[in-house]
């Protein structure tokens, strides 16, 4: 199987005896075994099987196989949310006293996780600007455990120079971690672009429809983990799966962030149409960005695909001439932003992206509420900014709704 759609639809092994075309939801907390010896073999890792859905579940495993195949990875772990995915990677790769280096234009939730949770456990976070990746080299020391970036910064919509990031990371033997939620494996081939661990909040474009919460971690197989500081058990037994074994056995199954079987099923359902939807999300965002440029109350339109956008070339290079489904606009101020949102009739005011519906949010008063001003600015957030997630409606209807909200009485 080579084509993206074919892999998304057919990858993974379905072993259900009824042979359904669509994977079933194994909605069960535990799985029975015919004798204690067989169960002992699974517990000891000598046989493959499912015991308890906090540890593994056939529906969740199928999702993991599909996403890993789409990323051309060596394996995946599906978790309860995108935030869980980041937390599991961080807990796996860092210990108290360690340091990480992260891009500064982060989704607010990720930044809060780093600041509120990992600082508490004495993990130091250095922030660099994706426009100046050379800053990273000055931040690296013997305690640096990973470099973290988003493939498209949310909501600054910056796109990193992955060649440069990988060059720095390789030189120092540090894994490069990328959150590809906004690009998805359809736009961004993480393995090809030197990413070592790729993460997704599958809540967004992967599941589509805004129907569920989920996250996925994929080891692309690029990084040699042999010299990394993992617990010895995993390192000795699973030489090819050092990261995955350590993440799954030491962190994931102990902190209890399993993805529910039904949520995994919704993600699997979403994968069937991911490519079709991404094409439409990207196209609608492009049309919308163009249309909004002509609206006089809109002071600025930020969309990586715009001709004058400094990330356009990166989008062409990394995302196969696509630019994602997000854009931001600036009005005169917070009051104008709130007035516009209030007048929208179809576009929804909601804290999500990747939904079939077009969604809008005022980031400064929501996701970034309480953030210091300088941090907001680094993330590209200001009082006059609105983030729009282009949905799958007809572009003309989205434009007309926003037009009446901006110009209407």
């Amino acid at each position, binding site marked *: 199987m080579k084509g993206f759609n074919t892999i998304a639809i057919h990858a993974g092994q379905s072993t259900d005896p009824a042979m359904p075309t669509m994977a079933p939801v194994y909605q069960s907390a535990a799985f029975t075994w015919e004798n204690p010896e067989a169960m002992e073999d699974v517990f000891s890792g000598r046989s*493959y099987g499912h015991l308890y859905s906090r540890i593994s579940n056939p529906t969740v495993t199928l999702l993991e196989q599909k996403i890993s195949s789409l990323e051309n990875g060596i394996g995946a772990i599906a978790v309860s949310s995108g935030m869980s995915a980041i937390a599991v990677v961080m807990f796996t790769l860092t210990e108290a006293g360690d340091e990480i280096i992260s891009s500064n234009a982060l989704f607010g939730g990720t930044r809060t996780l780093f600041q509120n949770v990992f600082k508490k456990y004495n993990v130091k976070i250095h922030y660099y600007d994706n426009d100046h990746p050379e800053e990273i080299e000055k931040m690296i020391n013997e305690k640096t455990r990973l470099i973290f970036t988003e493939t498209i910064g949310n909501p600054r919509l910056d796109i990193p120079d992955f060649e440069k990031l990988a060059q720095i990371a390789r030189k120092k033997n540090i894994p490069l971690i990328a959150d590809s939620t906004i690009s998805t494996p359809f736009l961004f081939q993480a393995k090809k672009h030197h990413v070592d661990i790729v993460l997704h909040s599958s809540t967004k474009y992967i599941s589509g429809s805004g129907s569920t919460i989920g996250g996925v971690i994929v080891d692309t197989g690029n990084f040699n983990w042999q010299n990394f500081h993992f617990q010895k058990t995993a390192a000795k037994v699973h030489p090819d799966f050092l990261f995955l074994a350590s993440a799954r056995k030491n962190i994931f199954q102990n902190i209890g962030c399993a993805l529910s079987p039904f949520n995994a099923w919704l993600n699997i359902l979403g994968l069937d149409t991911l490519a079709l939807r991404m094409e439409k999300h990207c196209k609608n965002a492009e049309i919308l960005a163009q249309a909004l440029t002509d609206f006089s109350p809109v002071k600025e339109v930020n969309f990586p695909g715009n001709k004058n956008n400094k990330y356009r070339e990166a989008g062409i290079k990394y995302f196969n001439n696509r630019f994602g489904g997000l854009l931001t606009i600036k009005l005169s101020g917070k009051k104008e932003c709130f007035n516009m949102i209030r007048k929208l009739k179809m576009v929804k005011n909601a804290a999500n992206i990747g939904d079939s519906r077009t969604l809008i949010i005022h980031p400064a008063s929501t996701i970034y509420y309480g953030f210091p001003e300088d941090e907001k600015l680094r993330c590209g957030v200001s009082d006059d900014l609105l983030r729009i997630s282009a949905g799958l409606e007809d572009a003309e209807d989205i434009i007309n709704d926003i037009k009446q909200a901006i110009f209407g009485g």
Partner: protein
Amino acid sequence: MKIVINGKETLIEKEQLSMRDLLVLQNVKMPEAVSVELNGEFLNRSEFASKTVKDNDVIEFLYFMGGGK
């Protein structure tokens, strides 16, 4: 040849075969996620095709997907 797989004596109707072929022959579940120990040494996956399984070899198939340590 006679080999031991996960503690059980197993007869294989071949004089020798590669580890990759043994995984297929034994119909090992989730072969993309299995780790293999041959006579006390864990193999890298890149060795599966070239490593030969011989008479009296002791082999362990191990998964990190289950519940144990």
